[in-house]
């Protein structure tokens, strides 16, 4: 691996002491970055080591919202979210992701920023605009079974692989950011990610010196939470498609709904067209089919991933049916359907 310098960050304010952010990377759990460095896919000159960033390792509740430190592990967050019905979606998504061993290391912010699993991104002998801008996209006409059907461009059809981020998008989480000048700001996670367009190597709105310090979620009542992940293997497999859904039925109509889709787009996909179709209407299988159609009408597949359109349609409508049935059977239900 390429030689690099290491700066150990203790506090967000330490960012001002970092000599250069050019070709720098923040190192949190390392479950993705270290792998990519071994494969010479990430070749940073500088590593900003966050292992001493202890202040970001806690979860606090504050005035109707929960603030999750950037360094909180996926295991700790799942454990916390599992006990809070209004965060159930997050717990379900986290526990569907990776393996126990990876979740023990992986951090909240690192999970948001993990890179795609596209085979051609990982193989440095292949064309990949994300890894090597301008080199082309080997996936479009290659083996693209795991690739995206929404939000792609002619330059990149890779997916964002995170389960957690999909739930975060559905729950409308906000990322808290601090930069080297000490300026702090918040950004909805729904706005964090950019689409590939003609710059697939750019994946987020973050500047080189932007450090995610926390992620917050408003713990508002959202009704029934369902995260359903369709996968080849029952553990340690990325989503073929996943659906993150919260849905509430009040006086016969859907008065609150949140939908995000995983495994189908370059970012955790906020299904706002489906949401718009559902909101304010009485739940029915026909409505759910229309909602799925609204979101999928722009879908484009590339051969190997053609199946994702029907599988997503089936899974999305099934999840909506399940959630609305549960709301009907248990008015004012909040959280997961599983018994606790």
């Amino acid at each position: 691996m390429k030689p690099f310098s290491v700066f150990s960050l203790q506090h967000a304010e330490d960012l001002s002491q970092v000599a250069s952010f050019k070709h720098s990377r923040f190192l949190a759990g390392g479950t993705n970055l270290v792998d990519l460095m071994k494969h010479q896919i990430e070749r940073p000159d500088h590593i900003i080591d966050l292992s001493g960033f202890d202040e970001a390792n806690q979860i606090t509740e504050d005035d109707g919202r929960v603030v999750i430190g950037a360094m909180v592990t996926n295991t700790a967050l799942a454990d916390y979210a599992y006990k809070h019905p209004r965060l159930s979606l997050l717990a379900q998504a986290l526990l569907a992701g990776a393996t126990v061993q990876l979740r023990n290391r992986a951090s909240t912010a690192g999970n948001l920023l993990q890179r795609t699993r596209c085979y051609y991104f990982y193989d440095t002998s292949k064309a990949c605009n994300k890894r090597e801008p301008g080199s082309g996209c080997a996936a479009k006409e290659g083996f693209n079974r795991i690739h995206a059907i929404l939000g792609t461009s002619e330059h990149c059809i890779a997916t964002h692989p995170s389960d957690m981020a999909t739930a975060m998008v559905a729950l409308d989480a906000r990322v808290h950011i601090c930069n080297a000048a000490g300026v702090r700001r918040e950004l909805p996670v729904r706005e964090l990610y950019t689409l590939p367009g003609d710059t697939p190597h750019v994946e987020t709105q973050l500047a080189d010196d932007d450090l995610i310090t926390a992620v917050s979620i408003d713990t508002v009542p959202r009704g029934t939470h369902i995260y359903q992940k369709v996968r080849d293997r029952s553990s340690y497999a990325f989503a073929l498609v996943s659906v993150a859904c919260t849905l509430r039925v009040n006086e016969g109509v859907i008065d609150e709904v949140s939908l995000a889709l995983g495994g189908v787009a370059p970012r955790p996909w906020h299904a706002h067209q489906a949401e718009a179709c559902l909101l304010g209407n009485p739940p029915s299988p026909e409505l759910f089919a229309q909602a799925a159609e609204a979101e999928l009408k722009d879908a484009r597949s590339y051969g190997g991933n053609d199946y994702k359109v029907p599988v997503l349609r089936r899974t999305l409508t099934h999840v909506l049916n399940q959630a609305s049935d549960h709301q009907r059977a248990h008015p004012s239900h909040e959280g997961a359907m599983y018994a606790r």
Partner: protein
Amino acid sequence: MPANVTHKSQGIGAAMNRVDGRLKVTGKANYAGDSQFASPPLIGWVVGADVASGTLTHLDTSGAESQEGVHAVITHLNSVEQAPFGSPEDMGRFGQSRAMLNDTTIRYAGFPIAMVVADTLEQARYAAQLIEFTITPAPISLLSEHQEAQVVPEDDDGGYDPDAGIGNIDAALADHQRFDMTYTTPNQVSAAMEPHTCIASYDGEQLEVQASVQILASAVDCLASTFKLPADKIRIKSPYVGGGFGSKLGLHNDAILACIGALQLQRPVKVAMTRRQVFHNAPHRGKSIQHMALSVTDEGQLAGVRHHSAMPMAKDYAFAEGTGVAARINYQAAAIDSQHRVKVVDSPMIDSVRAPGDAIGSLAFESAVDELARTLDIDPVTFRRNNIAPVHPITGADFSTNNLDRCLQEGAAQFGWDERTYRTRGTRKNGFGVALGMRMNMIVPSEASLTLHPNGELVVHTDMTDIGTGTYTILTQIVAEHLKVDANRITIDLGDSNSPTSSGSGGSFGASSAGTAVLNACEALSEKLCELAGLARGNSLVQLAGDNVIFGEGQTQQQHAVPHLLNSDSPLTVTGSVAPDEGNDEYVQYSSAAHFAEVEVDTITGEVRILRQHGAFSAGRILNRKTAGSQLKGGMIWGASYALLEDLQQDPRDGSFVNCDFAEYHIAVNRDIGDITLQLIEEPDYKACKLGSKGIGELGITGSGAAIANAVFDAVGVRVRDFPITPDKIVKQLSETR
């Protein structure tokens, strides 16, 4: 490997714990990558070709050579002299030259074109990316359609003829209800836990090699052939192997490259493949396209069985898999027509992977047979029991022993086949499947020495390997039983090419072959001790108790001190061996299996989850019920993995493999496997070998996957004929049918 714990039961068959278990779980078992050399090894890092065929036309290593820590960049321009790849022609494929870095021809994607040797892995790896090269690509050939495979292989792996049959197949197919089916299986890899790793050291005289290899003697031949060295100047050690599954039968790129580095630099050099590199630098199994036509009488008797297999064969490497042999043995039929054709392709090395032939042959054939039973509405267990063969279906030869029907019958009873109940849980429906498996048994020449020390301790030397199967333990048990000696007094020394030549591990032949050699060595020692004590030959009851030998029993019992008998302080060494003709050739020898599975299929998402698997196995006398059971369960899990998960994709544009890591090449994980149980139907087969044992290494996987595929059909009525059965393929059919 001495047994350093006390075992309650140590005789043949006992479920004795592994004698090497403690060393392994405490990290004290030294594998190939754990250097035993005096100086720490330099690290070699391989640079591979990015296309599957062509000529290396430009190579600039200057940027890498000037890096800190780099000792050498070895390429075809400066590599040690090697014999041409594949020479000499008259040697088996594991003993031939595996030369590389000796010319500019690219043989497959990932083919080594340079090796950086540096002090550390990081230095070598970084320097490697500074190497600039250009390959002028040539058109590549891969297999896509059945009819492209026109080459008749010389023979199929396992010694099978590529073509075999009996009766008039056209008539048998025309006269009865006929089913035509094409099944395909994808490229697969062995996926051993330990990636291929080697450390080599050369002092100008002797080449010492730590390797991870299943068969040592042919590995020595390979290095002698490749580097034109006398075999007695080469010593290979492979005391522990972290899984082989066929991928370590011979030496691969790691070993050749480590030896090139050691010979060139005269320092120990280590080459450890990364997981990604294993996919291209070690062998894989090619995809198969299996055309089948089956016909069946109204009474449910198989009439015609046609199985035509098309597979790829790697260029310059004559290995062909006997994918259709299941169709020759599983059932009797009026006519059988089995044919194997290959196409020579620009793929990495294609060789044995987990039960070559039968693993993927049984997956397809036992699924196809199930289609018949289901279409005729005959219970799939009954259908199989009505059709299994009393004698070899083609040659008519008798089986040495054959408990296939008992496996089916007793397995079904234990599984609860007749009591199976169907239910729907949410969106998931359950289903049940059965399949059978027959795996050929063979003996391979094997030799072992047995040394009795004056203090009464026994040491076995043989170049046999333990690839996780339990060889150390079963050989201990054979000695313990024969000489009535405590396991603590026995040391089994394996994996050293200086020891007597054994079968090695592979083809399910290791335990019976090496075990019989050790048994014969025990008998030779008993005889020798009788002779030394002045007793008549053939006094079979010879026991060791501490440093005493006890002869006979009852009133005639005699006891002699070992030092007294040996009449010196030197140990006594005898040898034992076995050869194939010791078995009875007029009989065909097979182990048999019946597999049962229950699965759940999600009718929305197409996801399959295994609830339980049960296997009933008959493989002669079982040498250790625990290690045998573990091996069989492992095979059943691999079978599940083939049915549902494993799929190595090859990019047709450049011949490279696409999903080269365990995140994307899916093997079954713990959570994929439900309850897994097995039963052993034991009947010693003394026609197979003197021990009465038969091979089990590849029996567990044979038929296992098909039972799961058949259960999927039972659950949701979907038959996926292109393995693996992934959710997308199930949903496709579910969407079409409703």
